[in-house]
């Protein structure tokens, strides 16, 4: 049932120009950045060759590309998620799902899965760029795997927040702004508050705040380091906002 709804969401996304536009813009921006960095890398390669343990191509070209992708997703995900619930409410098509023998959890998870499938396409396109270089050089597949996993976790957290924002209003554009605002607030508040709390030795609140710091949790894996808490945090964030979205949907049934 989750896959039925996910398939429907994916179809709906691709039926609108927005999804294609987002894919195009992301690919142009990332492709340009990737080629620029590759160019820079080729220019400084002679100097790098003289270093004792020089940073590799993956570290100097792929990692920054992934970081850019993370920033781009911050804008793209709320835009992609905005219609998922808000527009169904505005067009009153949500009734179809609510009247069907499908639970609220299945509806939200289905929509989340559909959005993740789309984001996976973006992530695979990002991954394809460094992978193309495999014909000419050696790649650090461990780091590349870490980067991809980090981006996937980041995208899941963003998607859950975007979906929750979409459940708050019947106006898709308002939902997008809301989602974007929530992510930005998390970024600013999460990063700074986490650091200052940790500086004062308050580790438990700092650990809690870290759940809401998507970019902070991106860093360790992005450096090729497996930090289990940094992996758990985005998962907690995702689960938390999905539960909120489910409750929100059920609340509409109760409150009308």
């Amino acid at each position, binding site marked *: *049932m989750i896959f*039925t*709804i996910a398939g*429907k969401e994916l*179809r*709906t996304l691709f*039926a*609108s120009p927005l999804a294609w536009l987002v894919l195009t813009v992301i690919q142009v921006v990332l492709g340009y950045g990737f080629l620029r960095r590759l160019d820079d890398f080729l220019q400084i390669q002679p100097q790098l060759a003289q270093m004792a343990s020089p940073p590799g191509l993956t570290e100097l070209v792929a990692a920054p590309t992934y970081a850019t992708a993370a920033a781009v997703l911050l804008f793209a995900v709320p835009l992609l998620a905005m219609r998922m619930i808000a527009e169904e409410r505005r*067009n*009153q*098509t*949500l*009734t*179809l*799902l*609510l*009247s*069907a*023998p*499908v*639970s609220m959890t299945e509806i939200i998870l289905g929509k989340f899965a559909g959005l993740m499938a789309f984001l996976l396409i973006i992530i695979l396109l990002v991954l394809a760029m460094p992978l193309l270089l495999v014909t000419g050089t050696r790649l650090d597949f461990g780091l590349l795997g870490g980067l991809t996993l980090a981006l996937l976790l980041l995208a899941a957290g963003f998607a859950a927040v975007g979906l929750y924002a979409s459940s708050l209003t019947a106006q898709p554009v308002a939902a997008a702004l809301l989602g974007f605002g929530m992510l930005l607030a998390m970024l600013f508040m999460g990063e700074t508050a986490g650091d200052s709390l940790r500086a004062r030795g308050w580790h438990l609140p700092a650990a809690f705040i870290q759940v809401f710091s998507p970019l902070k949790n991106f860093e360790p894996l992005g450096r090729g380091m497996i930090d289990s808490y940094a992996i758990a945090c985005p998962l907690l964030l995702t689960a938390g906002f999905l539960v909120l979205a489910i409750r929100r949907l059920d609340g509409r*049934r*109760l409150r*009308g």
Partner: protein
Amino acid sequence: MIPADPALTICARGLSRSFGTHVAVKPLDLDVRRGEVVGLLGPNGAGKSTTMQMLTGNLAPGSGEIRICGIDLLESPRQAKARIGYLPETPPLYRELNVREYLDLVAKLHRMPKAQRAEAVISAMARCGLADTGRKLIGTLSKGYQQRVGIAQAIVHEPDVIILDEPTVGLDPNQILDIRRLIRELGERHSVILSTHILPEVEAVCDRVQIMHHGEIVFSNTIAGLREFQSGRTMIVGLQHPPAADALAAIPGVEHVETDGEGRFRVRFAQDSDPSAALLSAAAAHNWGLQQLTPARSSLEDVFVQLTRDDAAEDAAAA
């Protein structure tokens, strides 16, 4: 509390709902049997849609209990909802899908086995007159066809209970006739509840009628009962040589007379009396030149006025 009757497809007891301080639906009971078409009639804002939303699990009731084919809707929503087909006021259509894809999605959402799906979609399209539109995008269809897709959506999974919220609204007269024929047909095998504010529609398709007013069921009877209620107590009398209205009012059994000044009178009878014979003989005796003596078909508004007036009178009598 709820009777165990296998033919009872919808059974609601003490169903009510408020929004804040506004009471949308006062506690009401509703029974629908298999093979029955029940009309929920009422002006806008009477609570029809709210009642239907509760019956389909779209809105949690404030109190009360709903059983669909004996399954508690609130306790086992999944099993109960599988037996319901619902067309809300605004048909829930995905404009970017074509008709066939959309109906297939609906069948999938209702957990129809893959083997039966293709056939169910084709049969639903055929029954709703959509056979030639399978490949058209829903967004490009006219309002009438979209409404048909909405109905097809409600019946594609062969539900026991079909709930249609104003199914003929916005259609042209031919389409209305088609849809009414379809509803009659559906009523033979399923239970159908439909809401409307058009009185002739209820007469055309329903077996029973429940009239809602201010969130209450104020009248519940068969169509024959409704006709009697509507017409039994008022007659239109047309006279060539009209006397003063008082002359008509003087006939025993006549409760009230209104005149349009051109020889047509609206005569209301007192309860449990039929003065038509007395009227006839009086007309003959005084040479009034009787042209017309027909039961007045009161409009829905009249029925409401009458129903609410009766209530007020009863309340006054009780007090």
